[in-house]
């Protein structure tokens, strides 16, 4: 198969109405459209790591004594709260953002 790559790619050589492409990264992260936020009860958390395992966007961050969430990335799906065997995670409504 023929490859038509160029060493120095210049997107401006392509007509801007031809095909839907993007060459600039979008700053949007899953957290931008979250409506529920996970809230962790540190007294209940036994650090089993199931939330870390199940999170589809891998936003669970390990801390010395519990797990925390990177809220820029968390999309609020609630899978962690559903799977937590100790009911240590509650999903609370986002407000005032």
């Amino acid at each position: 198969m023929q490859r038509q790559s160029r060493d120095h790619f210049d997107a401006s050589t392509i007509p801007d109405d031809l095909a839907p492409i993007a060459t600039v990264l979008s700053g949007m992260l899953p957290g931008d459209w979250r409506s529920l936020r996970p809230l962790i009860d540190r007294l209940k958390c036994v650090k089993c790591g199931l939330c870390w395992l199940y999170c589809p966007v891998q936003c669970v961050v390990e801390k010395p004594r519990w797990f925390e969430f990177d809220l820029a990335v968390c999309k609020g799906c609630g899978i962690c709260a559903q799977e937590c065997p100790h009911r240590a995670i509650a999903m609370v409504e986002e407000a005032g953002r």
Partner: protein
Amino acid sequence: MTTATRESRLASNKPRFAVCEGNEAAAIGVGLARPDVVAVYPITPQSSLVEHLSQMIADGRLQADLMNVEGEHAVMSGLQGVALAGGRTFTATCGPGLAFMFEPYVRTPGLRLPMVASLVTRDLLSPQCVWGGQQDAMVVRDAGWIQMYCETVQEILDTTIMAYKIAEHRDVMLPVNVCHDGNYLSFGVTRVELPDQQDVDEWLGPPATNWHIALDPLRPMGVDPLTGGAGGAGPRNFVRYRKGQCRGMQNALRVIAEVHATWGERFGRAHAPLVEEYRLDGAEYALVTIGSMTGAAKDAVDLARDRGEAAGLIKIKTFRPFPLRAMAEALAKVKRVGVVDRSVSFGWNCGPVYQETLGALYHAGKAIPAVSFIGGLAGADITVEHFARAIALTREAKAGAAADEPVWLNEND
């Protein structure tokens, strides 16, 4: 044909003719265009096209990868990846297969991927049938693919090769459906002239499928990011791409004519690119036809002329983009028109080609008597006798009588 090519052909021992069915002619055309990847799922009446291609690849006559897939949806999705990686592609389908392909099929023109796909046209279910008709192609007439309908087996071969040149033209960059009638053309066996591989290579040039949108680490880009909606730059981005797509379609009218002209110069066979006017000189009324039915219709027109009647014929080859100007010019020459469809526009109670012919008449500034004929559904034959009846009814068509009801040609067969 140039003198040089004629001499080099005389010097070679290669067979220059073949006797084959329409599906094999399409496969031969594909082979001459040297695609990188072929993915086809068999479906009646297209199946022998796949078999011919598989055999060509197995015999080493075509150096292409044959992608074995589980269905038509995977065919089109896989080929999008091939085109985005820079490869020339081919597939073929019809009827229910096209219906299963629909989701990635409608996405292809928006991505401006210059694919070529044969539609071996077939009527749609239900009632259950496995035979030819043009309902499948007419259902997708506004999916954004270019549609060219062939009249003969030779035209299938030639148009299949031309389709790559049209699709990959930088002013077009749209996928092309080469439509040929299931059963009548797919299995109709005739003698065809074979172009030389070297001539086709020179005329066609190397593939140019992903210079504008690509899966390529050296040209990092997001392919088909989210646009549209009601906020930010979404609406204007979406409209810009849609307008570009429409312009590509309109450019195709010019490019299709140019490509047919250079094909005729190089290979000595001229086909009408958009609309063919047949015996319109002195014609008072004309039939409008599309596809393989045109042969019998031309015979019927000849017989009418022999009787001293002022009949003519307008054949549509390119239906998408719609050749508005060429149709308006042809229709301007007659006083009554009868349009023969091999499919149905359910909401309008007439044929789709009839419906669009009325649109062209408006652009020609004419409100003339027009009749919608529907025939050849699900493999039915439209014979010279059927066309003679259509000609007689068109001749008698009166102003203001324009079709509350279509005339069903095979109703009593």
